[in-house]
């Protein structure tokens, strides 16, 4: 299968179950909503060492937010419910509560998944001066802070989700691989219910499961490292000089499929003539997780 002369490898991306939640942050203007959201989703590229994978799903216009101010929708993914509770409390407490003019709301429907504390514990920052307001069945906390009040919904919802959807862009040069990935990310950002948690959505250090060092659960994907082509059993053809990966976390399989489709098509739009050689995926032979995303099926 080829798109614009770019080969789509007959392989699949392997993804694993995660827990996810959506949180909406609003502020006096777009800039401050983004400041809060960027801080809250910072250092959240991989669960390997960050505790969670998080990112900005989309920006929201005032008409689309609970308090009628500009906002940002964030998605957070973790490996367990317990870790999610810890991450949400720490990230909202340290990055949103602290951000001027911010407010924080549940971004999921009340009937979805299971309950997850949002402002439930953060309210104690109010030292007894916090005020509860129950509006339309949802409880909100008004926590007095130095710029006025921090408004935070008591709970949000957490659902079962999928992490680790991915595809690899194999190009002749680093510059070409990056250009294709940038195009892909621009297209994928339009898809709801997904995030691409790595910096700018792109990861250059794709990993394989395991390592020669016993302490490490993952290590560099040597088969895709171009500088090791003559040293290891490489998966790269001679003309490939750079590989980049786009990792996708999504609320469901359909969202990951849609994002993968949009991303690959956008990456392939540059075509073979601009150095894009092949699209592949992180296939770990069933070691990583039960969700398989076959590239050719998705692109049919």
């Amino acid at each position: 299968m080829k798109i614009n002369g770019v080969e789509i490898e007959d392989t699949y991306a392997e993804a694993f179950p995660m827990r996810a939640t959506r949180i909406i942050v609003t502020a006096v203007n777009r800039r401050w909503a983004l400041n809060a959201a960027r801080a809250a989703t910072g250092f959240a590229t991989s669960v390997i060492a960050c505790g969670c994978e998080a990112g900005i799903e989309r920006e929201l216009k005032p008409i689309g937010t609970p308090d009628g101010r500009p906002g940002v929708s964030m998605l957070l993914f973790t490996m367990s419910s317990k870790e999610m509770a810890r991450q949400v409390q720490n990230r909202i407490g340290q990055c949103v509560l602290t951000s001027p003019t911010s407010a924080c709301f549940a971004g999921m429907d009340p009937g979805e998944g299971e309950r997850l504390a949002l402002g439930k514990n953060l309210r104690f920052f109010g030292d007894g001066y916090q005020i509860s307001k129950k509006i339309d069945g949802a409880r909100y906390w008004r926590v007095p802070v130095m710029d006025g009040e921090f408004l935070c919904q008591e709970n949000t919802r957490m659902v079962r989700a999928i992490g680790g959807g991915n595809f690899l862009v194999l190009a002749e040069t680093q510059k070409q691989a990056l250009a294709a990935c940038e195009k892909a990310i621009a297209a994928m950002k339009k898809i709801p219910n997904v995030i691409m948690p790595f910096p700018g959505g792109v990861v250059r250090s794709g990993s394989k499961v395991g390592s020669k060092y016993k302490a490490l659960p993952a290590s560099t994907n040597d088969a895709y490292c171009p500088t090791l082509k003559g040293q290891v059993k490489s998966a790269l053809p001679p003309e490939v000089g750079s590989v980049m990966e786009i990792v996708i976390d999504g609320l469901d399989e359909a969202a990951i499929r849609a994002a993968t489709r949009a991303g690959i098509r956008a990456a392939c739009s540059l075509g073979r003539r601009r150095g894009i050689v092949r699209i592949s995926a992180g296939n770990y032979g069933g070691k990583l997780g039960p969700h398989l995303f076959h590239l050719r099926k998705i692109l049919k």
Partner: protein
Amino acid sequence: MKALTLTVKAAPAQRVDLAPITPGNLRGRKAAEIGRIRLQSGNRTVAVAELFTVAAGDSEEIVIRKCTNKFDNVGAGMASGSITVHGDTGHRTGAQMAGGTLTVRGGTLDWAGTGMAGGTLVIRGDTGRCLGAAWPGDVHGMRNGTIIVCGNAGERVGDKMRRGAIVIEGNAGDYCGARMISGSILVCGKAGDFIGYSMKRGSILLTRAPRLPATFNDCGTFEFGFLPLLLRSLGRLSRRAAALSKRAGTHARRYAGDLANVGKGELLVLR
């Protein structure tokens, strides 16, 4: 399916307890059965059929026509469905309500919504004293739900109120929000004296500065993020609240009190 309709034949001379007439209590009963239900009236009981003409219909949607303020406990204890009253009602309208919607197209006497735990009570006219207040011996007033009064309310609105929201589109009498424990009261008109007397927590929202009790302190004017949410929610039931939701910003002047009690309540004067 059309509504189950009870039309008052003639205004009763004695007060009548209408508590048995709720959607839950009438569910599955035929018109003749409903007509045989005994209602307490003074020291005797009377059959529904003696006082009302009963037209069969969906018991989840009850309409009471030509009602007068001789009928107490209208919609008391209802937990689902709707009751629409054409005319006035007596005391304890919607008392102990747990759910559903009770709409009175006229006015009510005292103690409407006392002990209310859920649902929506709409009074198109005026209401008497102790709206949503604690019945003597009760620890709390209304514990949840929403009350909308399109007219004026008497004294002691929300006395010992624990949760929920009350909107008075007109004026409220003295001791509005007295001994309030929590919840929200919005008074669109004027509020009487001793507002928030001995309140512990909760919010009383006003559109004009009240005669401030000595035990409330001015905190200044600020932006409150919860105001748009609360006003928009109340605006779905109240036209005045809807208008305020559009007109009022998020700014309000905050007076904290009652400092003679716990002092964590507030009077918020919307700008």
